[in-house]
């Protein structure tokens, strides 16, 4: 197991490096930099002004050097002018003495994720705050999606070809055929609009991102729990959170339940289930005690591999319901070519994808004793 995890981790790091380099390369192509210069400076800059702005801010260096600086393996650029010293590791223009004290390396290895040109804030601050918001969303998505998907799958696969199976399978096909932007629009139309008049829920989830009041506290609870509890249970209410959560869960649910059904039907035809039935074990006990454990191995992998797709759904749903989380940051960073923020976003999402793949591989081996890694 040890060498396996080590090898996988090495592959993971190489993959992450390649992917961030691709993002870095694409965001640092000249037209993108030109757009950045014009949004940061002014829109009527001449070509020479753009070039000098880029040169002044360290964007005119070769891509590999810039990538090395971002990683923190190449010393950050500095530039001395009459006003003082500017550089990658310094905020604004500083004097020569201050510049001498600034660290010479500042990349992600040193824990410096850079500065967002759109939000004018530290990237690590923005990303961690927005990840918390999305975390709350994902928490509820998983709570809604996983149990219902497994239940539907098990009920459908229990008796293959029965009416329950047929109708539940149709439901799962329907949900896999409905992308988030379709189901979200339908839900908003039916449950929130004044035309239909149901108005059960709110069409936006903005109020779920409310700031925690400073006097908020729960008796006898540590602070981290208070923050967690506020984010997942107090700010999001049924009214503002149910529709976004449902929209994301439905799309993933169909796929997981179909996989569960397939694995359940396979298990139900196995010899040992027949033996149990012939011994006279009741159908309920056969399903719960004999079949379920083996049938849930495959869905575990599927659920873990569903995470990258959930990210897609998160971006769509956060746009649709105006919930300012990680997906919203992705859209903002990408549409404004905010290079360092975009890189941090891609690092986070790539790490999520690769870690879930690793967990699903390891978990599969633990759950399924028949597989041994060579």
């Amino acid at each position, binding site marked *: 197991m040890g060498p396996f995890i080590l090898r996988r981790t090495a592959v993971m790091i190489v993959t992450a490096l390649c992917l961030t380099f691709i*993002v870095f390369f*694409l965001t640092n192509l000249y037209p993108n930099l030109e757009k950045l210069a014009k949004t940061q400076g002014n829109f009527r800059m001449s070509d020479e002004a753009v070039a000098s702005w880029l040169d002044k801010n360290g964007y005119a260096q070769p891509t590999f050097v810039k990538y090395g600086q971002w990683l923190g393996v190449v010393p950050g650029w500095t530039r001395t002018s009459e006003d003082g010293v500017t550089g990658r590791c310094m905020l604004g223009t500083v004097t020569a003495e201050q510049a001498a004290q600034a660290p010479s390396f500042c990349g992600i290895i040193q824990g410096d994720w850079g500065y967002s040109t759109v939000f004018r804030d530290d990237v690590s601050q923005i990303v961690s705050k927005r990840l918390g918001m999305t975390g709350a969303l994902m928490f509820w998505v998983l709570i809604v999606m996983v149990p219902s998907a497994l239940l539907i799958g098990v009920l459908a696969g229990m008796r293959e070809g029965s009416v329950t199976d047929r109708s539940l399978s149709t439901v799962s096909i329907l949900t896999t055929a*409905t992308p988030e*932007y*379709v189901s979200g629009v339908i839900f908003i139309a039916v449950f*929130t*609009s004044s035309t239909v008049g149901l108005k059960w829920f709110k069409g936006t989830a903005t109020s779920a991102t409310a700031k925690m009041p400073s006097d908020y506290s729960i008796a006898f609870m540590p602070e981290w729990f208070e923050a967690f509890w506020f984010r997942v249970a107090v700010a999001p209410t049924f009214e503002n959170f149910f529709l976004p959560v449902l929209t994301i869960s439905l799309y993933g649910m169909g796929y997981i339940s179909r996989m569960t059904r397939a694995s359940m039907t396979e298990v139900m035809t196995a010899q040992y289930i027949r033996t149990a039935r012939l011994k006279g074990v009741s159908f309920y006990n056969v399903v719960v005690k004999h079949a379920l454990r083996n049938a849930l191995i495959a869905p575990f992998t599927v659920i873990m591999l569903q995470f990258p797709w959930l990210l897609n759904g998160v971006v*769509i749903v956060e746009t649709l319901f105006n919930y300012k989380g990680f997906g919203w940051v992705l859209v903002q960073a990408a549409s404004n070519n905010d290079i360092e923020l975009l890189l941090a976003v891609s690092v986070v999402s*790539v790490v999520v994808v690769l870690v879930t793949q690793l967990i699903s591989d390891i978990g599969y081996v633990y759950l399924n004793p028949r597989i041994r890694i060579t």
Partner: protein
Amino acid sequence: MEPLSTFEIITRILVQLSPVWISLILLYTMSIAFKRRLGLYGKLFDSPIGMIGFGLVMFWVFTGVYGAMDMIVTHPDVLAQVSGMKNKVPGTPMRGAEEGEYAWYLLGGDNLARDVFSRLIKGAWEVIKIAPLAAIFAFMVGITLGLPAGYFGGKLDTLLSFLANLILAFPVILLFYLLVTPEIVATGVPNYMAIVLFVFPIIFLAVLLNSRFHTRPKLRTPLLIGVLGFATWMYLQLVSSGGYLIKTPEYYIPGLPKVLDFFDIDSGLLVVFVSVVFVNSPTVFRIVRGLTMDIKTRDYVAAAQTRGEGSWYIMLWEILPNARGPLIVDFCLRIGYTTILLGTLGFFGLGLAPESPDWGSTINDGRKLLSIYLHPALPPALALLSLVLGLNLLADGLREESLKD
């Protein structure tokens, strides 16, 4: 004129769609009558799920094709804005309708006073024209790379699988945002990708024909020259526009002269097409690779190897035909997924022109006023849902029927 009642709206829409109904009825009667002679396609008509799915898919195919020929749409100019029709509810009579013009907006007007019904029909054509073609290209790339990776294994497999996983680890939306922006289009990156990705069908055809007929040079040589010549010509027409393969302010690479270039792809459409193919091909690659690794252990492959057949012959004429079942099923699902991706692109306003009638863009336009006006956003949403549902049901029916063999 009076506004139409709900019943009248439905009747009028059904009448507008009459060419589609006629085609569907003809198709179904013919197919059911001859279903025993039609192989897997005929067997589809034994499964109710497959029939429903096929019906939904063909409905949109016919609607798209006839819509593009202006047979169904009530207001052929989908960009025309008629004053006084802004956000009007379905069935509103058109103000100042002239002689020969259709007098109602059957599904109402959108926020720019354009006819929702006509845009819906035109949007179907946008999907029908891109999605299957993108799926075919993704399959060509996936098959051409997946077969050798699965068959030879080793270093080639490790490298290709690493690249495939690399693309798969990328969040799709981030990739779209990086590739489908005007700035990236200006650098020519999508054109380079098009040049690389669109070569694969030619390689596929060349290897396919050569491996089969290389023992008969007299047939092989003219056949290859003919087919490859035509394919290369089409390829060059596809990737070059205005006489250039790539044209950026700094440099250019000349391509096919304008005289021989009969069609030009709009650069926005090309970039959408390329990125959808790019996102889909690694998944196809993984499926083909897995199937190949499974099938290459079979006896008939061993028999072909003993006969002394070449590797490419075995891959393309022994393994590939035997992997067709799962591949056909996945092809249907992939068209559905491509449709969803196209919708996503439209939803984020990427790639296609903002006034384009495709469903994703229309949903995006309509969602801003969703709490007051439902009619601009709901029809495209339901249309997309029904098309993807149809493709999923069709795939399910095909899977069921192909398992019965």
